């Protein structure tokens, strides 16, 4: 007890913190993304694994190099670059040339994320923006979808293209759910994506609001459009990147609203825009564009849906008096 002039730590309260960390949150997202990657590899073969590997490794490498070069603290340990790499790979067709993956990672990590200040500062989802950049730059490679390498698989055009009026045969709904269909690596199996999302919900990493609002509004839109055709609606929901987008891309913390109402507005916006683009636009798929558009609206949505704090008084009429 002698006072040896011990220096005690002094800081603002609280003096207790829960053990969560940003890296822990990212790890949960990675775990949740694994089933979809495994299904992608089963459906499309080992080439899928190569695309995933290149995307993840290059995303981490770009993050490391950029922070080193800019003399910022190296933040690859927070695993956010791994998540971005995974999501990017999941949004690519399996036959994409690997050098295009590098361009994608560069755009995602350096241009979209680091140029705007790094983790938590980017206004658009890095993986989605990179996908869109690749899509407009290399439309051919980005829309050449391989056939599933599985017996009984339907080959030819992707379900989304068929729904859009292209020649071809639709897989059964069950095949759609488990991924026996054409498409991007991570989006083929709705069941795997749902499994991952359930994990994130159970771990309270994401809330139900954005996915439910996204998928729900898309379902309602499609039901109305098809005059109550449930089968058609189910195909639309399971086709393309809708589930991947709704469960893993639209729920990105940085680029979606924090508050509850804002999340619902954001999700509904994504769902409606996706349907509008799919049904009335010239593109077969609208998930990426709709999420990107809503990303940009996020600050405005947050401002418009500021949560009512405890005990907030109703607005007084003094403002009108001032204006007069």
């Amino acid at each position, binding site marked *: *007890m002698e*006072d040896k002039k*011990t*220096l*005690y*730590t*002094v*800081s*603002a*309260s*609280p*003096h*207790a*913190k*829960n053990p*969560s*960390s*940003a890296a*822990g*949150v990212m790890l949960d997202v990675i775990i949740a993304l694994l089933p979809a990657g495994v299904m992608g590899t089963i459906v499309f073969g080992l080439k899928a694994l190569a695309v995933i590997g290149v995307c993840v490794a290059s995303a981490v490498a770009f993050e490391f190099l950029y922070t080193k070069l800019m003399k910022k603290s190296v*933040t690859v340990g*927070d695993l*956010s670059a791994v998540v971005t790499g995974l999501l990017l790979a999941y949004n690519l067709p399996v036959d994409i040339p690997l050098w295009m993956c590098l361009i994608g990672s560069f755009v995602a990590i350096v241009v979209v994320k680091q140029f705007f200040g*790094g*983790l*938590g*500062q980017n206004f658009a989802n890095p993986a989605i923006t990179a996908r869109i950049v690749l899509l407009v730059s290399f439309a051919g490679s980005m829309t050449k979808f391989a056939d599933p390498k599985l017996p009984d698989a339907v080959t030819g055009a992707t379900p989304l293209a068929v729904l859009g009026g292209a020649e071809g045969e639709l897989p059964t709904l069950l095949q759609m759910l488990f991924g026996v269909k054409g498409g991007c690596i991570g989006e083929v199996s709705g069941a795997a994506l749902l499994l991952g999302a359930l994990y994130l919900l159970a771990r309270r*990493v994401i809330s139900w609001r954005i996915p439910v609002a996204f998928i729900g509004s898309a379902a309602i839109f499609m039901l109305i459009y098809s005059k109550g055709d449930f089968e058609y609606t189910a195909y639309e929901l399971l086709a393309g990147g809708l589930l991947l987008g709704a469960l893993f891309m639209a729920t990105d*913390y*940085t680029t979606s609203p*924090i*508050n509850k109402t804002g999340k619902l507005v954001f999700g509904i916006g994504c769902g409606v825009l996706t349907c509008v683009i799919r049904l009335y636009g010239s593109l077969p798929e609208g998930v990426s564009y709709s999420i990107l558009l809503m990303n940009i609206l996020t600050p405005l949505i*947050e401002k418009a849906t*500021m*949560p*009512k*704090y*405890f*005990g*907030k*008084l109703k607005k007084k009429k003094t403002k009108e008096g001032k204006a007069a």
Partner: protein
Amino acid sequence: MAHTRTSALLKAVKKGKGGIHAPYHKITAELETVRMPAPEFVTLPMLQHIGAPCTPTVKKGDYVAVGQVVGDSDKFLSVPIHASVSGVVESVQDVKLANGTMAPAVVIRSDGEMKLFEGIEPPVVNNKEDLVKAIRASGLVGLGGAGFPSFVKLTVKDDKPIDTLVVNAAECEPYITVDYRECIENSWNIYSGVKALQELLQLQRVIIAVEDNKPEAIKVLKSIADKDDSVFVMGLKSRYPQGAEKMMVLSATGRVVPEGKLPADVGVIVMNVASVAFTARYLKLGKPLVSRSVTVSGDCIKNPMNVRVPIGTSLRDIVEFCGGFTEEPAKLICGGPMMGTAITSLDVPLLKSNNAVLALSAKNAGLKKETACIRCGRCHAACPMNLVPTNIEKYALKGDAETLAAMGTMVCMECGSCAYSCPAGKPLVQYMRLAKSIVKEAAKK
């Protein structure tokens, strides 16, 4: 018409939003309160409450006895300070308090006899005016931690009728167990305090609210309340900050205290359970607030315990009474881990409002490395006031007072739930304080 009821036990009327579930660490819960002998010196700062400081009424060399007034003020928002030991005034000097501010203080060298002041006699209290006067004279401040003069709370204005007294025994802060011990050891004092207040203030009902992780306290209080039609015991969900005044009013009565208002504005008085028990003792004996119970705990304290200590005892004497440290702590905290103050030295006096002294090792001291905000929204989810702390931080750094005010910054009670939940380890309470000071500055202009 006599109404009957089956049980005195109530359930919460409404559930508050947010909050957190921190480990309880209530390791001293089953340890009976130990009375600490008079220390060699006590230091009685003239500012131990929210409000105006007192002026010393004694000078160096004066002999004082326990309960004698040593400082008082003629300002409204103030309560007198009483000698907590008998002895001679050693000096009247400025001292540093736990929160870092300086205040004049009366230092008394104890003669070890704890002789009671001769002028002490039970107050004559026949109506609510007498009560308010007596409670002011007793020097009572909220013993739960805030240190607000209690007589102000009990000043019932005719245009703001009060129907409910909520006795706050939630004790939602980790580690602290003094209120729990009060319930177990002094339940009859609590009850007689309740009855005295109820009668004098003409209150329809009294709700004693306890978190449901203290079933023993609920049982004891219920057995007493069962015999009384207007006294209820309420088990609240254990969720920090359940004991915060506004949360308490919501849970117990379903009423929302509007921003900038007090519980009295919605017809409720909230009093800490130890304050109620003290009120009962004071009305009976007339002995002012000269000692209080304090939990000395944490993984670096040799013998964690609940101690009854004379006000003004140095924290060093208290920790030494508990066997000192097992290892050098990383953090010393005056108060609970969620809202207490980290202190640089044990050489500060115990104030009326201090309910705990904690010594924590690095692994328990909430030393989390700060990383970038990922906008996960957990601070918002945890906020009982439904604020968005991470956005408030952003506007605070910009100095945008208008937006900060619109976001409800001023209702923040600094409970720390946001910072506790933050995966990025951000010092959000610090940012909230910055934001509040920006709003206050702007309002002055």
